[in-house]
């Protein structure tokens, strides 16, 4: 199970209190994880990445293991510690807006 920490607004939208756990089949990548997350919580579709292009929304970032993975290719495997459940995958609303 992959641990995912959502920002407060998306936790409210998905009606979850804390971090969520999702099962990902096959290679665990940014894309496969987000696919699994959106499948488990359909109301999150379109909130982290564009419906059509699947590109990350500009003010959404992906962190894990003290690394910014936002610009990593979406089909690259995620860090081993995320895959093992030792570390969570963080979906972060960028600090912006003054």
């Amino acid at each position, binding site marked *: 199970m992959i641990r995912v920490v959502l*920002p407060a*607004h*998306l936790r409210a*939208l998905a009606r979850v209190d804390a971090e969520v756990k999702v099962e990902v089949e096959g290679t665990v990548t940014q894309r496969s994880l987000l696919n699994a997350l959106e499948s488990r919580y359909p*109301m999150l*579709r*379109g*909130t*982290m990445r*564009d*419906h*059509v292009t699947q590109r990350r*929304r500009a*003010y*959404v970032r992906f962190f894990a293991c003290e690394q910014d993975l936002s610009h990593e290719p979406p089909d690259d495997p995620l860090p081993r510690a995320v895959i093992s459940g030792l570390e969570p995958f963080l979906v972060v*609303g*960028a600090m*912006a*807006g003054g």
Partner: protein
Amino acid sequence: MLVGTRKGAFVLEADGKRQDWKVSGPHFGGWEIYHVKGSPADPNRIYASQSSSWFGQIVQRSDDGGRTWEPVDNRFVYDGVPGTHRWYDGTPHPWEFARVWHFEPSRSDPDTVFAGVEDAALFRSTDGGRSWEELSGLRLHPSGAGWQPGAGGMCLHTIILDPNNSKRIFTAISAAGAFRSEDAGATWSPINRGLRSEGIPEPQAEVGHCVHCIAMHDSHPNVLFMQKHWDVMRSDDGGDSWREISGNLPTDFGFTIDVHAHEPQTLYVVPIKSDSEHFPIDGQLRVYRSRTGGEEWEPLTNGLPQRDCYVNVLRDAMAVDALDDCGIYFGTTGGQVYVSPDSGDTWKPIVRDLPAVLSVEVQTLP
């Protein structure tokens, strides 16, 4: 009353006296709520546009009058290859969905609702918001590739469904102008003859006008009232032609316009100083009322701040109720929501400190 603000939605409730109000909210706190509107066919069915720069567009639906909400489909995908419109600098710019500005539920079917979006397009759902399809005949009008955004973005903000003819729809787009469909949204015609806008290369062009809001009284569906960027306008032929009715208004810039529930010739506007100073003249918040269908206007000030008031009233932020003594409501960018229970003669604030108000809609329930 369903109030959309920059930081959430609020529901304000009162009995027919409209004196004591219960305020609930914020619903969807922290999100921009551009519009919340109930179905005329089932007032318990409400649609809300929830959006943010971070997480995009959410559509919320309530089936119990706003007590509980369910997110429904938020996928607004332009039909086909969307192509380009003109950007501020005149260069081609791809059509990009940004947000829903306005929901217009069907008059007869709670599951049918129209959505006006930025970049300007009209979408429709016939399954209560569970899926959306673009009525692309509007965006694909031959003039579409030349449309340019206004300062607030290129938004389709006004949707009026003709009460007597289900195939007739009016829309307005900033800054393209007004459009009419006679075939339920399949094809569209610009209806801007008579508009004159000094800020565009050809002041009387067929399209390119910054229409801010259009209102209609159900008993006279051929009579339309328009607050344009500058100028208050009237059409008596369903938009085929327009004439100016600004008359003695102190300024004819503004955003919102509405019609009395029982008097089709009684109009309300909130004059704003200018397009560079979005606040009332001399710090005096005044609604202007015309009882003659335009031209002759009177200021309504009783209960409204008459000094040091520098708020704006946005295009969807005025509404009327259907009670015998018609109530008029508006919200401001300063977070005040005002009510007049007597057609505008007297006013009082219901709340003073909400986030900036983007929209106000009223449901009159039995």
